[in-house]
């Protein structure tokens, strides 16, 4: 991957983007047990596959979601949070 498409700024070099990890649902901190919370804090879906991730276009501070194949390193789609892909 050398170029990524920012939903606002279009195609830009990948060096302008920062990776912020997978999109994950946080359990309710008040209701979750210590074990459930540890599972959320540490454990990851870490096998290769197509994943949804948080990315940021750093010059414009645009946060968005990218769908990416982590084995081939190919971005399939990008969209703003709250919008439909």
């Amino acid at each position, binding site marked *: 991957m050398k170029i990524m498409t920012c939903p606002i700024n279009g195609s830009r070099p990948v060096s302008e983007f920062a990776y912020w990890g997978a999109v994950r649902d946080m359990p309710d901190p008040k209701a979750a047990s210590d074990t459930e919370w540890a599972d959320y804090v540490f*454990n990851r879906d870490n096998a290769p596959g197509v994943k949804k991730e948080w990315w940021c276009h750093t010059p414009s501070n645009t946060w968005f979601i990218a769908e990416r194949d982590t084995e081939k390193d190919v971005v399939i789609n990008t969209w703003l949070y709250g919008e439909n892909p």
Partner: protein
Amino acid sequence: MPWRLLRFAFSSKHPEPRMFTQYSRLKPSYDVVIIGGGGHGLAAAYYLAKEHGISNVCVLEKGYIGGGNTGRNTTIIRSNYLTPEGVRFYDESVRLWQDLSADFDLNLFYANRGHYTLAHTDASLRTMRWRAEVNKHYGVDSEVVGPEDVKKAAPMIDLSCSGHAPILGALYHAPGSVARHDAVAWGYGRGADRRGVEIHQKTEVLGIDVQGGKVKGVQTSRGYIATPKVLCAVAGSTPRILNMVDVPSPLYIHPLQAMVSEPVKPWLDPILVSGSLHVYISQSARGELVMGASLDPYEVHSTRSSLEFVEGLTAEMLNMFPFLSNVKVMRQWAGMADMTPDFAPIMGKTPVEGFYLDCGWGTYGFKATPVSGKTMAHTLVNDAPHPLITGFSLERFKHYALTGEKGAASVGH
């Protein structure tokens, strides 16, 4: 041309023994199956056979031995870690390294060079002092030295780093060494092979048979084998194996890239590391500069390498050594580093009975090859973790009891 070589070339039988026995088929069962024919897996097989007399062992390797991170690292060996667990563990490893060539009867080109971790800020100098004190407490030879000592050891260095990151001091670690990494895999492999361990290359694990929470066998691309004990030592491929036994883990896989320059005259004796500039560099016996940087910034499950890496690393390298500007980069490559949140490995038992893990080796696995093999062999035989690895269990994350080793990582990942 020597006669022996000529005779060998014309012989139809190839009388020279191969380094490893080639087995045409897998046996139906083994006492232990080791997944991963890298340094760690082969070392575990070697110590199982040598120290515990267990030689009905099979090592399964998807590619060829030593073709993963064992052959992709920058060959640095050191024990100047930060936590007591880490220092004790790596110190034992350095001790084993020093006798390894004689142990194998194979020249590993183990070269004791001395290792400098450069500090460019007061904060990193403070961490160096902390590391030096922990090291000394456990009898490891480390001390904080000034910029003049760095200049003496590497006269070509620009101490101001082009003016933007002046060197304030360094953590000097005398036992720091380099070794030929391929030979380590071959040495452990041959030693294990001679003691009856079977090494099966080009054999992929497709599934692990778990019944009632216990390991029963392994499904491979060349058939099923029954076994009560499996050791998983596959670095960046660990999550794929863990999914087969349904064990969650905190690993995350990022590529770690490295490169070598064309060979030049010897000018750099010690190993130099700069955490702030994200550079480590040593000169190999062939004269090539072996250089590495920090992890790639995002998750990738392949060993692709990138131009951004070469551009970034060479820019920092020239800040330290401006005279290298005309030296060419010869080749670059990447390995899949299995990182953990606390930068300490994951070793020992898992919730699945008979399934043992040796992973989370991130960017520091090569130097630990001997001691991880030895301690994992002990763990497999006794079904209880070796005293040196109790701080590295998978369980620690469940109890928030981390072993914070990030301060000793060679560069600020």
